């Protein structure tokens, strides 16, 4: 009898095993719970925005990160341990990790996947109206388009995804031809712009608008029209794969498309989006506000960040930023306040001369930099931004970047302008000039140029005006992640000799030992280091680890 009892007991234990081995109740989130209510879905939406819009700024905050102007010749390379050092001075971009896309190639698809997941699952939310859901889907598609537009510029043709992949899908998606990537971006932007609102209520300012979607399209079309892609002969012959790195022919009509897209963006932004070029007649304040003040009238899309990782490489109060200094190569793009060019001495000259010449510079310079021995112009009478507070150690740079921090006080937040209305104006100016319509080009250019307090440009020769417009891009959009791509896509002839490659110069102080907080004696212009340039760098390499998996084709030269 007893034996039977025990045997029964054994079986009883066996029977209840099923429950015994189950996962205990958990408070973790699953797909079903994420998309159950609007409030919860906001978290997934927020994540999609954050991941998509962080492109080009050191989002993941690797200690050896950089900002793109560290490798464009605009700023010195940063520190010895940053990626910028290797890329700018010795190895250039490499397939083993040193690329300008510092969060990593793979992270593009993390952002895209998150946007698609929201787009595909938002219909599961029970307490959201159909029209709101349609807007969310359009927002997500626009975020995908933005990420693709940036990849298009950096890598050329990339795998095009129109949905989130699962492990059961065919994951061997090859690189799509440039044309296909471009067409996808423009059609996604058109579709999104048709649904997106022109403005958001105050608390949601910062989400995708119609003008933002049109800006993405305009930027993609502008780069498609520029010489790097708008050709049948790519920068390096890629044989049968030429379609991955150029559009196959040189077609002037692409400039026409660029103009139309830019004009459409300007019209939407100004008429419905409440945007305008800020011009109150106080150039330093206007430009400062346009590049620093959250949700100012000129910003169409921004990456908004509270204090923390994203601002660290931009804010001169953080050690990560201490290595950034302006080069003479780039300083020379800035005009003097009277619209003429400044000249910097190449032999030892009294420091007082530096003070005189630097004070002569145009307002946009003063809104973007802090010069030696001078309290920042863009934060007047603020000890936090004084010469004394910002001084770190002796170094040889022309000046230190303080852009994005106009009248910032001690604020921790940081708003990086992804699209400013000014960019659409320069888009249009550049395209009109290429189409031979210099009058139209000057109208657009001078809106920006004169807002900066400079006398109007009147040049009508196409080639000369091209140089002037390019110079305007440099000055207006310093540190906004344009210059590195612009000079590559213009195929500037001096890219290996004074832009990215060749002698990178700075002003050197005190017998070249470095500028001091006070008591500087002399200065001169001279080469700081030799920049590295090789034609393969027109486009970024794909990571070797991805290439080794066998589906992707590496860009030529790597």
């Amino acid at each position, binding site marked *: 009898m*007893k*034996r039977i009892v*025990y*045997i029964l*007991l*054994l079986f009883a*234990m*066996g029977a209840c095993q*099923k429950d*015994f*081995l*189950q*996962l205990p109740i958990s408070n*973790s*989130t*699953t*797909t079903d719970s*994420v998309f159950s209510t609007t409030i*919860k879905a*906001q*978290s*997934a939406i*927020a*994540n999609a925005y*954050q*991941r998509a*819009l962080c492109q080009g700024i050191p989002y993941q905050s690797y200690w050896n990160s950089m900002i793109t102007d560290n490798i464009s010749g605009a700023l010195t390379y940063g520190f*010895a341990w940053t990626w910028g*050092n290797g890329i700018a001075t010795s190895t250039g971009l*490499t*397939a*083993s*990790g040193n690329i300008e896309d510092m969060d990593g190639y*793979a992270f*593009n*698809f993390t952002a895209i*996947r998150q946007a698609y*997941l929201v787009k595909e699952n938002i219909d599961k939310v029970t307490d959201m109206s159909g029209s709101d859901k349609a807007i969310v889907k359009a927002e997500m598609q626009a975020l995908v388009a933005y990420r693709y537009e940036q990849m298009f510029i950096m890598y050329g043709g990339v*795998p095009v995804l129109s949905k989130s*992949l*699962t*492990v059961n899908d065919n*994951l061997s*998606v090859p690189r799509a031809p440039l044309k296909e990537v471009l067409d996808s971006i423009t059609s996604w932007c058109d579709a999104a712009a048709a649904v997106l609102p022109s403005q958001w209520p105050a*608390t*949601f*300012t*910062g989400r995708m608008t119609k003008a933002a979607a049109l800006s993405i399209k305009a930027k993609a079309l502008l780069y498609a029209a520029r010489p790097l892609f708008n050709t049948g002969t790519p920068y390096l012959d890629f044989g049968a794969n030429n379609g991955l790195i150029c559009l196959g022919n040189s077609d002037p009509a692409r400039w026409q498309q660029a103009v139309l897209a830019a004009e459409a963006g300007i019209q939407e932004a100004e008429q419905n989006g409440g945007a305008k070029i800020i011009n109150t007649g106080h150039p330093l304040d206007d430009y400062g506000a346009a590049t620093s003040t*959250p949700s100012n009238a000129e910003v169409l899309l921004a990456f*908004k960040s*509270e204090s923390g990782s994203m601002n660290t490489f931009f804010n001169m109060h953080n050690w990560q930023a201490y290595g950034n200094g302006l080069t003479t190569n780039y300083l020379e793009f800035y005009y003097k306040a009277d619209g003429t060019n400044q000249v910097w001495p190449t032999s030892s000259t009294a420091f007082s001369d530096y003070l005189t010449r630097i004070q002569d510079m145009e307002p946009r310079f003063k809104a973007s930099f802090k010069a030696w021995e001078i309290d920042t112009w863009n934060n007047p009478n603020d000890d936090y931004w004084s010469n004394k507070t910002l001084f770190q150690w002796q170094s040889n740079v022309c000046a230190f970047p303080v852009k994005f921090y106009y009248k910032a006080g001690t604020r921790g*937040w940081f708003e990086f302008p992804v699209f400013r209305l000014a960019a659409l104006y320069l888009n249009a100016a550049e395209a009109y000039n290429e189409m031979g319509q210099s009058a139209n080009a000057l109208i657009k250019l001078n809106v920006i140029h004169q807002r900066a307090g400079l006398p109007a440009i009147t040049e009508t020769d196409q080639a000369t005006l091209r140089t002037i417009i390019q110079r305007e891009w440099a000055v207006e959009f310093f540190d906004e992640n344009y210059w590195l791509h612009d000079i590559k896509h213009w195929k500037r002839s001096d890219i290996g000799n004074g832009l990215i490659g060749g002698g990178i110069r700075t002003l050197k102080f005190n017998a070249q030992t*470095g500028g001091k907080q006070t008591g500087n004696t002399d200065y001169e212009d001279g080469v700081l280091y*030799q920049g590295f340039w090789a034609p393969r760098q027109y486009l970024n390499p794909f*990571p070797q*680890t*991805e290439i*080794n*998996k066998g*589906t992707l084709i590496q860009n030529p030269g790597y």
Partner: protein
Amino acid sequence: MTCRKLLLIISMFVYQGAIAQDSTSAISTVTGADLYKTPAANITNTLYGRLPGLTVLQGSGEPGYDGATMTTRGIGTYDNNSLVIYVDGFQVTSDYFQYLSSSEIASISVLKDAAALATFGMRGANGVLWVVTKRGQQSKPTIQFQVRSGIQQAINIDKPLGSYDYARLYNQAVSNDNYAVNGNQYVWSPKYSDAQLAAYKNGTGINVDWFDEVLKKSTPYTDANLIFSGGDSTAKYGVILDYMKDQGLYNVSNGTSTSNAQIQRFNLRSNLDFNFFKIFEAKVDLGGRIEDRRYPNFNGPSLWNNLAVYPSNIYNVKDASGNWSGTTIYPNNPAASVRALGWASTHDRTLQANFNLKEKFDFITPGLYLNEAVSFNTWTRNAASKTATYARFYNGTQTTTDKTTDIVASGTSPVGQYDWKQANLTAGYDHTFGVHAFSAAVNYFASNFIEDWNGDLNGSGYNTGNNIYHHYTNLSGRVHYVFDNRYVAEFGFGYSGSDNFAPGHNKGFYPAVSAAWILSNEKFLQQNPVVNLLKLRASVGKTGNETSNAGRYLYQQYYVSNGTFYTGNNSFTGNSGIAPSYIANPRIFAEHSVKYDVGVDANLFNKLNVTADLYMDKRGGIVTYDNNTYLATLGTSFMYQNVGKVTNKGLEMSVNFNDKIGKFGYNIGAMASYSKNKIDYQAEVKPVNDFSKTTGLAIGTPMGLVAEGFYQMSDFNADGTLKAGLPVPAFGAVQPGDMKYKDLDKSGYIDQNDVTKIGNPSYPSLYYSFNAGVSYAGFDFQVFFQGAAGGDYNLGNSLAQTMAFVNNSNVYAIANGAWAYYPDQGIDTRNTATYPRLGTQLNTNNYRNSTFWIKKNNFLRVRNIELGYSLPEMVLNKLHLSRCRIFVSATNPVTWSSLLKNYNLDPETPSGYPALKSYTSGLSLSFK
């Protein structure tokens, strides 16, 4: 057969099969009496070289945190390789095991092969440590009293250079830093003047030996125990009381405001056996203890790091105003850290309570029995402290915002706990029919472990906080058949289920077969005078490992918090983000192991015992983050898959010889274990160059660059760039005296693509020990050696001692060989340098993993020497004693190691709180 042995066999049978002559398993065993020979606070520190197949590597000697690392038969997986520990038939945590007293322990066995591990199923793959505690014997009451006491010292302390050498070398370092600024020239630009150097040299400058300020030369250790045992055929008892106190090396008194590091342990074990109604055998085992730990109120590892990195010349212990010194760069004056911050303590309570009831149903059919057992194991830890802070001064000025405060007592608060309930039901049958001996058992085991959110098994993966429940079941069985005491065959299995995996996919079946041939029972050897035992064994079987470092519930799709996106105008609204984590794998399961073993056991001349085993362990299904299958376009963290494969092979051998010539007895013994593993598959993405692959190498093989000396001045152009034709390092600018590496792939750049195997893993491939003992007329003497070989040490792992000056740290003798060229100072080591040029800034070129920093780490230690004297029987009888022995012993007194000799680093504990050596004397009395 003694009762103790019988019980041992019963408790071991289900899990291990018979341990007698007809066992087919590979098991090695050591007795508690052998472990007692090594006085050590932590039981793991008594196991060095005692068990063939168990590699025990020493760690820190900090009281209360001095556990050694144990692995069985090398390393079989790159995932979790911790072995599983059972005490009296129930699983326990490593912490429970560590502070058992050797006086409580009857034996410790290590179960190694498939035959021994079959019934452990999904928890058997990494081997099992099987501990049996002491029980009462059928005898008159006996009382045994043992006490021992001694002093402990650090085996080795690696001290930095003093102020003079620090300043002298710092001048080089800071001059080297200015190379680029000085137009790519080495220009002498010292920080310390000749007068300062002279002051350091003649003793008038500040020169503090922080180790001397904080540590004392030696510290006491004491333990004592009292063992009562006895009983008759109906009831037996074994009761053990044990006390241990182990103090730290800090030179501070134990009082209200300061405390040395220390642990006091109070153990009480009561193992009772009852027989009644002929059919019942019951066991009630209670093993409880209290551990009281107390430390200076400053993180131990940080303190030892500060001792290592704070230079001697930064300040005196107290400044001229009589206050504790401290600066913003060096805020934590080590002397004040142990004296001015108060103390922190923890209080641990542990109880393992086991109940076992066996019913013998011989009246139904001879040999049939049932057995039921339960175990309740519980642990809690509370913390309490008395703390203060102190103001830091430098030259009479306060340097930080800290203020000196009075000492404040905190309340006691809970910081950790677990409880572990386990049940075992067994039905068994044992019988012999003529020449056929047959035994079989089937067993059902259920385990419910509940830990705190911060528990040991709860750390990795997502869903922490809900991972506190661990449920496990195992239905196991064993059939053992012996024919004519000559041929043995056995089949064992485990059918295990774990809640780590998806319902419906959470159970696995683990069978094993084994056989033995006892040649010595064959006719042709039966009468042989030389061969007393000769047995050949072979086994093959499967086991599993359910605990992965990747975490639990990998079949669940988790969403995790991910950043915040802001919207709005001047006052931003934070929208916190949430995103999916790695892709769930509904089929995830436990890694498995197929083990093969052939062995031989022999006893010759009744004096010589030899055991040898040859084994192979093929691991498969190792939980691996699958980097290789998916492309980045998937856009998410990839999946964990059961794809990893490792092969681990090796051999073990032990030889023991015992003899007695008249009154003179002697014994010698030796054992050696050799193991070698290879990663067969780990979803590694193919690197650019094949020589960078880690698949195909041993687990933990160091990868790095191949160093080939230092850059010389002739390698550079006038503008500081490298001459044409020299490969360019991608790690930052270099200058003369920097490390030069090989451009293995001839790409023109030295970068991560030039990384290759640069040495052997730190884990020793050969682990061995040998011992000898003699006894004569009441005297006995034992010496025990243990060594290891085949592992390499990466000096880069002792950053504080090898990376000079960086991050305001210190300088050690290794830097005396630094490359330097200042001919006007009489410094020119260009051709003799043994260390890269010094610098005060982080150098991303010189301190990379490379062949330069990899050193052989073979060592041999005297683990134990003991001299004892036992009083003769005549004297004992007068004193009413059955045994009285006094002894002196030394633990870890001598170490031979190239790492120790050349770099002053202990081979097993190169940095942090050092490992200890000790000198002890003791007394052991048995009353009758």
